């Protein structure tokens, strides 16, 4: 008993072939979409690779690009086959390849599903990469004279302004590192010497943040230095001051940005999977309906179409038997030859 049997006459077959051809063109566009999403994601990761310590994994965007290209390829091929299926002579040359093509399509759909799953799961390693990268970035903020790190200050400043964030978890991260270079510190001043002496590593730590942490929505001019000293500024209480600097940490800001991007890409890939399943099912119907013509010479005869020739269980056992037979096939050959040798 075939799975989802449908009877076809000529008109129905033509209509099926035309609609599946049409859907294949949408599937080609979907393949282009997946490719471009992968490219876009790769570029976005590249743009901020400095903040991730140049350590970020490009596996997911590369996979998306690869899948997009393959999707374009097989969907173009499928469209061509569908177009030719209306003409029996042209279809005859594609017929032998169709079964393996359909199996390949099923495998490809499974891989697409894995890709979609990865899109939702890649958030976790990204979180660790970002935490590490930002911590190092902040450490090198002051090294504007070291080759290879001289743009870190600018990158961090631009990022804090663009993403409206400050520090790794929050603005207090800036209190724990020295972000003013020694070149601009007056070592003859007592205040500087005291500060450097006051901690183990000899770093110039202060309760201040760079200007890029300032929030333009604040009603008062930005207070960047001596932030925890309430008496240094008139009418200022650093516990209740909400709008002075950005409250959000940059790790959280970047994570939500990339996370949102990956969620959108994952959702779109799932829609592409559904489209691919539909075209695969349609192609299977086209294939089966054209191979079961009641009268092979007469193109107008009736035929049947199905998804699977037998039920799911029977198909599964068939596949298992075939695989066992392939394994045994070699052994049976040897046994036969040995018997012949002994007889003669």
């Amino acid at each position, binding site marked *: 008993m075939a799975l989802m049997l449908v009877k076809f006459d000529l008109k129905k077959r033509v209509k099926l072939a035309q609609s599946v051809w049409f859907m294949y063109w949408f599937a080609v566009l979907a393949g282009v979409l997946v490719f471009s999403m992968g490219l876009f994601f790769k570029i976005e990761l590249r743009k901020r690779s400095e903040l991730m310590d140049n350590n970020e994994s490009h596996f997911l965007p590369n996979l998306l690009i690869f899948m997009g290209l393959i999707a374009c390829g097989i969907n173009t091929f499928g469209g061509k086959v569908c177009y030719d299926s209306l003409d029996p002579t042209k279809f005859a040359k594609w017929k032998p390849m169709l079964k393996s093509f359909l199996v390949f399509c099923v495998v490809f759909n499974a891989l697409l599903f894995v890709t979609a799953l990865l899109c939702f799961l890649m958030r976790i390693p990204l979180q660790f990469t970002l935490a590490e990268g930002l911590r190092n970035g902040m450490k090198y903020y002051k090294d504007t004279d070291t080759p290879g790190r001289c743009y870190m*200050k600018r990158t961090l400043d631009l990022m804090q*302004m663009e993403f409206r964030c400050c520090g790794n978890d929050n603005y207090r991260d800036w209190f724990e590192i020295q972000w003013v270079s020694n070149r601009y*510190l007056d070592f003859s001043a007592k205040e500087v010497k005291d500060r450097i002496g006051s901690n183990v590593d000899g770093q110039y730590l202060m309760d201040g943040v*760079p200007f890029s942490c300032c929030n*333009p929505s604040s009603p*008062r*001019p930005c207070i960047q230095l001596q932030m925890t000293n309430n008496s240094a500024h*008139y*009418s200022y209480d650093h516990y209740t001051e909400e709008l002075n600097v950005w409250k959000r940490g940059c790790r959280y800001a970047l994570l939500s940005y990339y996370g949102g991007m990956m969620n959108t890409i994952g959702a779109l890939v799932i829609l592409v999977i559904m489209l691919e399943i539909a075209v695969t099912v349609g192609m299977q119907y086209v294939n089966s309906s054209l191979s079961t013509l009641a009268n092979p010479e007469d193109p107008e005869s009736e035929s049947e179409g199905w998804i699977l020739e037998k039920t799911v269980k029977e198909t599964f056992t068939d596949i298992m038997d075939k695989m066992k037979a392939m394994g045994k096939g070699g052994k049976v050959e040897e046994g036969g030859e040995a018997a012949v040798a002994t007889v003669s």
Partner: protein
Amino acid sequence: MAVGRVTFSKAEREKLAEVLWLLNWISVVTGVILFSLGLFLKVEIQKWAEVMSEYGTFYVPHMLITTGLAACCINYLGGQICLDCADTNKFLRWKLVMMPYIICTFFFTSCVLAGALMCYSIRSQLEESLFLGLRNAMRYYKDTDTPGRCYLKRTVDMLQIQFQCCGNTGYRDWFQIQWISSRYLDMTNSAVVDRLRSNVEGKYLMDGVPFSCCSTFSPRPCIQQHLNNRTARLHYDQESQQQNLWRRGCRQALLDHYTGIMESIGLTVLLIWLFELLVLTGVRYLQTAMENVLLLGDPDLESYGWILENSLAEMARSNFNIIKNLGKCYQVDDDPNINVPTAAAEHEVPSQATRIQCSS
């Protein structure tokens, strides 16, 4: 002697009608482009409208929007007309509308040209508006508690960050206004009171700038306060000063930004104008060719098409004569009811022969 006279065979007329139909549809698309350019310009101006004074006088975006909509309507109608013009029978339907349509399109095309030229000429008006607007915005920077001005601080900060500029002409403009609100000044502090007393208007002026003037290219942490005091910091040399803050004034930055946009829009509108002129010429040729064919009687004959029936000078002269004689038409010279003097009664000459032609 007709201006630009061309002979058209029947096949050529039909081809011309088809081509013009297609061109009219392309013109509808360019009309949509014109409309969206106007909309884009309006949105761009609206974004920074707070730092422009009298921004309502910028009529360029409104002109582009109305011209774009008019282009769509006129060219859609033109497409319908050209489609019917291939056939002489259908042309009769449009015969009376054609001339007014062409005149209307001619005026509309000159509006498009005016729009394009306006885009290029707006620079001086924009500069004046920006100068006044930025000056006021900086003056009200500190008024974050005054309704209607509370977002001006944010706008100016975002402007300086985004356009990488500081102040009106330069960063020194901030030294001349009080940009720290009195709410955050400790009036009991003698230093503050001294500063307030040191100038006539009692303003708290200082040689410092807001944080948004800080340049991201500077290798050292931003120096915002005591900018005139060289010795306040270590190694505050000429180079440090150059890279510390944004050097450009915001007026110049915004002017460059908007001039760039206007120039590109102006160029596009000029190209659209040339295209519309081409379509108008084609429609004029089609109209004259079809009318001449109708005069000849046989739709299969060749006919002439032209832009103007006579040369420009002759046309001007004939129009002038029409206007002159419009006045003469109403002069009553030979009304038989008027009493003619008796001396000339026996020499009465029938006056019908000397009736003046009212129409020429």
